[in-house]
């Protein structure tokens, strides 16, 4: 088993004919992902990468029955595209795009919660189930089917955790980038629930960073609900207060959201901490041995 995506997931790519979508769709197809078509308004009826292009998600629903949407449209249009996918009845929406206005996300989040739809991202690398399906921009080659579930707010930092667990032979069940924005579609807790229920997952790596309180909330949840070992690394221990560290959500505001606070809370709730980025894999191995 795995979480969120597998080789039977039928994927619709929104913003399909753009350069980033094309590059990553090609790689996803090569990886074995079942992409069934794409949407680019105004280009309906064309064929791209050998797959049908539609003007609307609703039309695609009728013709190719996708159950997941992968969004690459530019930030100004993401609210529109996410709500379109949700309205058409897609159950899982993954939005890769960086730079979506926060107020757009407030509306989107409210709406998808009402509809009971899962949104991953925006500003994230996507979701991969190694050996089965890759819905995102992560390099497929560093992954290996295995037993570790990975959740992260950062792209390249996820790859570090993946590489280390691959090198140590453990591999991954699924890897989920929830994104670096202040209002993510899914939280750590949403994904922890899925990994806890997944038989293939033996341990969970949670990569957090400064800003907000998602890690603290996750810590509390883990204490009460997660039986599997959780190993966490928090980035930004040397970040100065009040500065946005690349990600829109990575900012220590009013003295809140520091790495030290998060680490203390996680430890208090029984989460194992990797003190350094280079020790994530080792820590997982140690906890599982």
């Amino acid at each position, binding site marked *: 088993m795995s979480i969120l995506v597998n080789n039977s997931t039928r994927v619709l790519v929104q913003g399909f004919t753009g350069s980033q979508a094309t590059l*990553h769709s090609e*790689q996803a197809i090569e990886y074995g992902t079942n992409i069934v078509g794409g949407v680019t308004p105004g280009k309906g009826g064309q064929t791209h990468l050998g797959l049908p292009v539609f003007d609307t998600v609703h039309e695609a629903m009728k013709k190719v029955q996708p159950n997941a949407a992968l969004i690459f449209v530019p*930030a*100004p249009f993401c609210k529109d595209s996410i709500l379109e996918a949700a309205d058409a009845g897609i159950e899982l929406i993954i939005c890769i795009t960086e*730079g*979506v*206005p*926060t*107020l*757009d*996300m*407030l*509306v989107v*989040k*409210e*709406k998808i919660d009402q509809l009971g739809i899962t949104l991953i991202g925006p500003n994230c690398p996507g979701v991969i189930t190694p050996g089965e399906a890759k819905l995102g*921009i*992560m*390099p497929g*080659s*560093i992954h290996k089917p295995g037993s570790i579930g990975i959740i992260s*707010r*950062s*792209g*390249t*930092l*996820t*790859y*570090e955790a993946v*590489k280390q667990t691959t090198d140590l032979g453990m591999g991954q069940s699924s890897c989920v980038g929830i994104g*670096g924005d*202040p*209002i993510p579609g899914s939280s750590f807790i949403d994904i922890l629930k899925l990994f806890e229920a997944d038989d293939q997952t033996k341990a969970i790596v949670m*990569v957090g*960073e*400064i800003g*907000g*309180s*998602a890690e603290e*909330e996750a810590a509390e949840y883990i204490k009460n609900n997660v039986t599997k070992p959780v190993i966490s*690394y928090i*980035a*930004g*221990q*040397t*970040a*100065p207060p009040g*500065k*946005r*560290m*690349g*990600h*829109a*959500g*990575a900012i220590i505001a009013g003295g809140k959201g520091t*790495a030290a606070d998060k680490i203390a809370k996680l430890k208090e709730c029984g989460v194992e901490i990797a*003190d*350094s*980025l*280079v020790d994530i894999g080792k820590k997982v191995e140690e906890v599982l041995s």
Partner: protein
Amino acid sequence: MNLHEYQGKALFKEYGLPVSKGIVITDSNDAHKACREIGGSKWVVKAQVHAGGRGKSGGVKLVNNPDEAKEFAQNWLGKRLVTYQTDAKGQLVSSILIEECTDIDKELYLSAVIDRGSRKITFIGSSEGGVNIEEVAEKMPEKIIYEEIDPLCGPIGFKARKISKVLELNPDQTKQFSKMFNGLVNLFIEKDLSLLEINPLVITSGGNLHCLDAKINIDSNALFRQKEIQDMHDPSQEDPREYEASKNDLSYVSLDGNIGCMVNGAGLAMGTMDTIKHFGGNPANFLDVGGTATQERVAKAFKIILDDKDVKVVLVNIFGGIVRCDLIAEGIIAAINEVGVEIPVVVRLEGNNADIGSDILQNSGIEIKSINNLADAAKAAVELSK
């Protein structure tokens, strides 16, 4: 993006909020004219910088005649104001706001933020204004109200009435506040604010509500649809290197160490800084060169990092995901040749074709230490920084 007080108040005015009559000057010779135009016999002069804490640092003054206003402007224009919120260099004062003087009966507090936990715009109001709101929250939690705005509903009257109760407003003031609240919610949504603070919101001696200050932050992600706000940007309030980086689409934050960092991805960039610290060094900056790390971007990043003269060594940490490491290595070499880097450079490449990339760097003839293990690369950079 932050706005100056006078810009915030212009937006307040646009949304029907009560603000003082004021004029912004950039030349001290205009002080007399401004005072005359505003009228009255007392004025408040305020140095315009983005940082808070201006009052305690001498950046705000009550003056009794136009000569004093001129003197204040002469003193501050072109100088840097240091407050507890700025660094030691402070922020440049390039304009002064002259306002009519308001007689205050009581000071209140009002702000609105995007609360990440509840995922809603949240108004925070308190009958205790002009003080540190965190202290009020701690010592007198009953004097503070948090009221969420449903993104699908916008401003609703009862929310304003609830806040009014905690602000201890009389029926007439509650009516005034309801109108203000409506304006503030619409302002927040229509202009893509991420923070709005009125500290203090006052009750004048005439019993009316009045916004004495205006602090506004705008969501940078939304600037593409806020042309009018874009024009309000004042780069003089930012670190010059951070501004230069942002113009080039690079995320850069200046720090006080001596190991320059160039990394792809924001999380990994923070992780790299932490790793340097872990091994006893001090990072000079945060820099996310972006997912692709092309020659052009790497060259720009080198220029910005090397502009900081404290930097003794540069650590480049690239996780080549989709882009192959051999291509990245060639980009790094070309960028180093283009920029003319004279200090040691340690490069760690990981991902696709990392070994080939490493060989290319080693055989390039320029002084690059190529170490593909992050711990060893960080240790080497720390050693070279001493």
